[in-house]
């Protein structure tokens, strides 16, 4: 089914989406979306939502299951505290993506802003994944407690940095893979760079193939550069901070 979002307040639009999800619609296409917030907020199930136009902040917040495809760009707060499901963005996206995300996948073809993937966490089989095709701003993976963050830095032939500073500051869980080089000074406190092992390559191959398939990218062009792996130095970064 289609919903025309032109001139529609977010509350009305989101109610229509929720009603459709409740009715069991398998596919919902939104037309003329223009900055409406909270699309897909708190919905669950297996619906697929295709968004034409630019959705507003907090796209897919608290979402648990559905798939959202954004045909253009997205704004801030995508996948905020998301529990499960998948969001694919075919353009760039803004700041604070995947805050506190604990499951599901977020694929962004282009660049992402500041503080992306902060405080992601994992529990048993719930492992959140964010893959960024382009570059990322400062504080990428800050406070990271679990999950997988992948930064591909594709289509960046200029000698610009793939990622900003304070990378993974306060990281105490999870793993970050970055394609290409990073300078030591970009790393935040408590992060170490290690060599990839065979198990890492299996994970990368699987996730990147899915990413490339969803976003129509040649997989070979991704693997023409080696990856760096970032992990926390300690699961207990602040163990020695206090006097008891």
């Amino acid at each position, binding site marked *: 089914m289609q919903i025309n979002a032109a001139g529609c307040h977010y509350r009305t639009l989101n109610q229509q989406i929720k009603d459709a999800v409740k009715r069991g619609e398998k596919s919902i296409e939104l037309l003329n979306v223009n900055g409406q917030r909270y699309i897909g907020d*708190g919905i669950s199930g297996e619906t697929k939502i295709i968004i034409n136009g630019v959705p507003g902040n907090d796209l897919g917040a*608290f979402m648990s299951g559905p798939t959202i495809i954004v045909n253009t760009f997205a704004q801030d707060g995508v996948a*905020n505290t998301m529990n499960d499901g998948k969001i694919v963005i075919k353009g760039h996206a803004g700041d604070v993506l995947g805050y506190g995300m*604990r499951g599901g996948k977020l694929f962004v073809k282009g660049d992402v802003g500041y503080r992306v993937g902060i405080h992601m966490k994992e529990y048993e089989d719930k492992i959140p994944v964010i893959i960024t095709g382009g570059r990322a701003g400062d504080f990428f993976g800050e406070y990271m407690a679990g999950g997988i963050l992948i930064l591909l830095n594709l289509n960046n032939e200029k000698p610009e940095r793939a990622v900003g500073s304070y990378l993974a500051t*306060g990281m105490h869980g999870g793993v970050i893979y970055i394609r290409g080089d990073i300078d030591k000074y970009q790393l935040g406190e408590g992060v170490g760079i290690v060599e990839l092992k065979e198990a890492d390559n299996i994970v990368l191959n699987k996730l990147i193939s899915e990413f490339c398939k969803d976003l129509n990218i040649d997989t070979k062009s991704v693997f023409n550069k080696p990856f760096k792996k970032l992990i926390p130095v300690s699961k207990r970064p*602040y163990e*020695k*901070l206090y006097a008891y």
Partner: protein
Amino acid sequence: MLYRTPTYYEFKVERDDTRCIRCQVCVRQCSYSSTFYDAEEDRIFNIDANCVGCHRCDTFCPTDCITIRRVGENFKENANWNAWAIRNLNKQANTGGILLTGMGSDRPHRIYWDHIVVDASQVTNPSIDPLREPMELKTYLGKKPDSIEIENITGARGKGQGASDYKLKTKLAPQLELDIPIMFSAMSYGAINYNVCEALAMAAESMGIYYNTGEGGLHRNLYKYGKNTIVQVASGRFGVHLDYLGVSAGVEIKIGQGAKPGIGGHLPGEKVTEEVSKTRMIPEGSDALSPAPHHDIYSIEDLRQLIYALKEATNYEKPVSVKIAAVHNAAAIASGIVRAGADIVAIDGIRGSTGAAPLMIRDNVGIPAELALAQVDERLRQEGIRNWASVVIAGGIRNSADVVKAIALGADAVYIATPALIAIGCTVCQKCYLGKCAWGIATNDPYLARRQNPEIAAERLSNLLTAWSREIKEMLGGMGLNAIESLRGNRERLRGVGLTDRELKILGLKHAGEGM
């Protein structure tokens, strides 16, 4: 080091050996390894350095042979460099660490409640006896409309004589309904154990009030108390998912806490046991870090975004509260919070309690709850938006008189935590952060947690609230009021004692001795 590292201990455990029957109950009860039995000598000994002064052993000693004495007075008398200062400095010289503490500040901050007195009726406007006449403590928390519309449902021809002929046309915002204007403040599963969480939930249900999960998520076995549960969303977003939001009666965004304004929280890995890890949804044994700010909230506009993200996720069916620590600019911030769409603003003062906080921050950062409350209420009234949200005050409410004063100063309800913990055994030894609580409260050790029986603890909590509600009714009756609503924000019924003109101005009170 050429000399022994100094560990100036705080307590000395004295035993009357002639009374001791070697039952070893003290050995089993002490969780701080301060007491041990020497079989060879058939004697019980103490390691005084380990004693935290929690009084678990002497409470349980059947022959009353133990006395816990504070030591430290034997340092040379000095108003600047007292035992407290010397011990802290040594602890830091030993470890290089930030001083940690638990519970609310023990420093002598001025307690304004003790400088406020309550009015009563004499001759004119007779007082009411709550034992004989109805007395209403019912409180609704949430946004109240600016005006209401009532429609005559009998139609155009209707006579519209009786109340049943009319219906409220205005759609009201969701409300929390409280039988008494008191709630249990946020205490997270992890900081306190499951048994204590369940006791709070059971007491909240039986007393018709709410308890608050804190930011530790909600154990699935406690979902059945959902209609008496406020769930918290804090910067770590631990255990926040659709089921958690869905079972709750209300959602609270935690921005700050009175005991540690401006800083985040660290639940140490030792406290993240299997069950805690399930609820917080993080691996066992890993630190649970709550960042100092919500990194998606840098402004009132951003706060509005999270408030509405939560309202969208809960279909606008639940009130959203925002809790802040009482700081200098609390009144302006509260105004912003209300304008951002919060249904409830909770303000936690400098004497507010905690499971773990840096000592310097707990004792020095923030302002007293009384002053913040008076200013927030005043500001919201001046701006004409007082009805847009309810105000809940926390941080240092010790008894029913404090509740009465808080409500007359402008609060809709109060949050209590320390009185609730004391009701179930806490002796305020301030060692919650060690996770070894001998009273079975601030610990997840199953051996210790078993010391709290949820049914018994819930009964004690209910008794406490029943006693307070009786006292509140007595005080209301004495003022000639028959509903708590008539006292709310009614500062004319309060007077200050021994306060400066400026303090009185901030509190909006007259001095005792000044008439109406």
